[in-house]
């Protein structure tokens, strides 16, 4: 047992933190939030050059063969800086899907392009109802001589507005949900941003008789669900890492503010109630963060991590909301303003809780895991 990071991971963390602090301060975050693109192509290329995008892909596919824990380190730093980018959609979600389900050819072509920074991919899974389940995938893939046509609307597709490719989940009659790789910039694809509390690139995507060739199917026909289930569990862990990074900064910023802001002739951090709020925030972070590393290790060790990923995400959903909410409260009026940075975390926390499955769904998965054990 060794609960320390490797020195490589320490370096990775330091360099990521430094890069984001310099290149993407909170001013820049707000500017990007308010832009139509919602990300900076320039910064995206820079993080590609830093090796983040291919970090966790095998070397054979243009990556650096890093561990899942490495990805977790990057995600924590992204979460601390609130870096607006398609990292989660492209690397964490779609990268994993391609790695899990893609053909050799797809892996070589797509993962390499992702790692280079030249390919942004968006997952178009959800439909109008917002179901997280397999049964929520209802869009039909109509068979054609050498492929399929896709028609309909997908919802909550992240970064579809800036993506080069989409991975669309659609049902092949008699087979079931299947993953299709499509050109996001085709004329028959329209992505429209939905206004979310996170001010991010969450999109509605309309597909109008879009043709897909058989070669652009990822994984087996009807094989979408096992791939999505496994990669979404991984993504949930990575998302939790991002959220816990956010918690950490909320605590640091708020502790700092509480040590400086004076009312009634002394700093507000001298008030016992403020102290206990901060302690409860710390507890929320430190417990979940300790567990994060344990769960991330399960991924790297090849253990079954699905119930643990759900446990982590459910706890983190609650904890990030709690921590960011108290952070705003302790900041008082200034914390509620757009000018200040702390509410950025508060708004993200609410949005992120719905990613990779709802809290209730994760609780249920935890329970199912427990009952299987028992």
């Amino acid at each position: 047992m060794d609960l320390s990071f490797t020195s490589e991971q320490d370096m990775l963390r330091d360099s990521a933190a430094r890069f984001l602090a310099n290149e993407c301060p909170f001013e820049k975050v707000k500017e990007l939030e308010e832009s139509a693109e919602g990300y900076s192509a320039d910064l995206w290329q820079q993080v590609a050059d830093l090796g983040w995008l291919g970090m966790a892909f095998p070397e054979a596919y243009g990556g650096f063969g890093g561990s899942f824990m490495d990805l977790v380190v990057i995600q924590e730093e992204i979460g601390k800086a609130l870096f607006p980018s398609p990292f989660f959609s492209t690397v964490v979600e779609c990268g994993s899907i391609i790695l899990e389900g893609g053909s050799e050819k797809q892996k070589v072509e797509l993962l390499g392009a992702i790692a280079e920074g030249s390919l942004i991919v968006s997952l178009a899974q959800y439909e109008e109802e917002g179901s997280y389940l397999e049964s929520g995938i209802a869009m039909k893939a109509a068979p054609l001589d050498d492929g399929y046509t896709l028609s309909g609307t997908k919802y909550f597709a992240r970064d579809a507005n800036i993506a080069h490719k989409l991975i669309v989940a659609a049902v092949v009659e008699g087979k079931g949900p299947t993953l299709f790789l499509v050109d996001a910039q085709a004329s028959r694809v329209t992505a429209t941003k939905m206004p979310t509390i996170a001010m991010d690139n969450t999109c509605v995507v309309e597909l109008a008789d879009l043709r897909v060739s058989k070669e652009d199917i990822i994984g087996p026909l009807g094989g979408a669900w096992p791939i999505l289930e496994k990669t979404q569990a991984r993504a949930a862990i990575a998302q939790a890492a991002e959220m816990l990074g956010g918690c950490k900064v909320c605590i640091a910023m708020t502790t700092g503010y509480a040590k400086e802001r004076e009312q009634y002739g002394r700093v507000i951090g001298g008030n016992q109630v403020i102290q206990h709020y901060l302690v409860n925030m710390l507890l929320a972070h430190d417990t979940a963060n300790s567990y994060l590393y344990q769960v991330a290790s399960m991924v790297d060790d090849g253990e079954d991590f699905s119930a643990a990923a759900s446990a982590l995400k459910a706890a983190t959903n609650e904890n990030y909301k709690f921590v960011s909410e108290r952070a705003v409260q302790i900041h008082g009026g200034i914390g509620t303003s757009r000018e200040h940075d702390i509410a950025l975390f508060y708004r993200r926390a609410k949005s992120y809780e719905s990613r990779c499955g709802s809290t209730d769904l994760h609780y249920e998965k935890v329970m199912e895991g427990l009952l299987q054990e028992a």
Partner: protein
Amino acid sequence: MDFKLTEEQEALKKEYIEFFEVEMKDAPPEFRINPSEALYSSDECWEFHRSMQKKLAAKGWLTMAWPEEYGGRGAPLIDQLLFSEVHATYRAPGIDGFGIKMFAPTLMQFANEEQKKRILPPIARGEVSYCQGWSEPDAGSDLAALKTRAEYRGGHYVVNGQKIWTTGAHRADHMFLLARTDPDQKRSGGLSVFNIENMKAPGIEVRPIKYMNGSHFYNEVYFTDLIVPEEDRIGEENAGWKSTRATMNFERSGIGGFISVRERLKELIEYTRTTKRDGGFLIENPLIRQKLAKLHIDVELGRALAYKVAWEQEKGNLAVSATLASQSKVFGSELTQRMANFSTEFMGLHGQLEASPWAPLNGIMIDAYQRCMGGNIAAGTSEIQRNIIAWAGLGLPRFN
């Protein structure tokens, strides 16, 4: 104990309902999201608010609980409460709380006759709009630390300084200002209250503060050599803290907040009855059912408390009603927060959506998720309210 309404009250309530049923038909849709702040957000909303204000005044409802000598009709606070309930049910604007609920009672108690005759009637007629010049960057919870200076120069004062979190300053005609008239007196000594006659006067600059979601109701207000005539000082010089403390305690039953939650809860229940996910309606989910039930119960509890606040105030138990009002404020704002958090959670992916064609209930709940933080902080943070309850209500000692 008797919780039944009298026949007169029932009739009045019916009249209120009929009025708002008609008048709110053409209200700008923003009022459905957050009426107390929507009024400041667009010219259209503001105009609607102003016209409603005059209609309410014409009906005699704006100031019904005021003494008759000041243009009210001395109605019991319980009647006022009934009006507030119906008003909140329809999410109607038209009440300038700063003028009617805060400044006017202060004037009645502390102003001289000339001031009462001059300042109160336009408020009663619904012709004017006030903002509250209290908080400063370094004087939030600790209001008595404020620094804005009003220097006496014979016949008038010259005001310099800065206020912050001034809701509606960009719309208001007037402000009631708390400023330091004696710089040698620290904290609550040396403060005076002023009626600022014209918010557009030279010497006043209003700058917007955007809320976390980008909307504009807060402002910074900068004073540079603003001239305020001596006759606009309310009460004795340097005695402003006393009247300010009284101002804090007027009509704070909090009934509007509970009614607002109740109405949103109705919409939420309707949403869960009509929204399907994964083969069933949301309302069939026991986890959702229980949380909705809890919210409903809290609304009922809060409403009962709000009645008690008004009752104690009516009976003249002002110390009791002030403490209860702090309880009502804390309970109400934290209830709003629970509702906003829970509802945007069970909406799943849709819960994050702001007002748009895809957003459930047009984004009311995600709006509330953001606005509720202001509710926990403005007009005395939940922490300050709890301190007050502990000290004044429970008699626990105050240490520094």
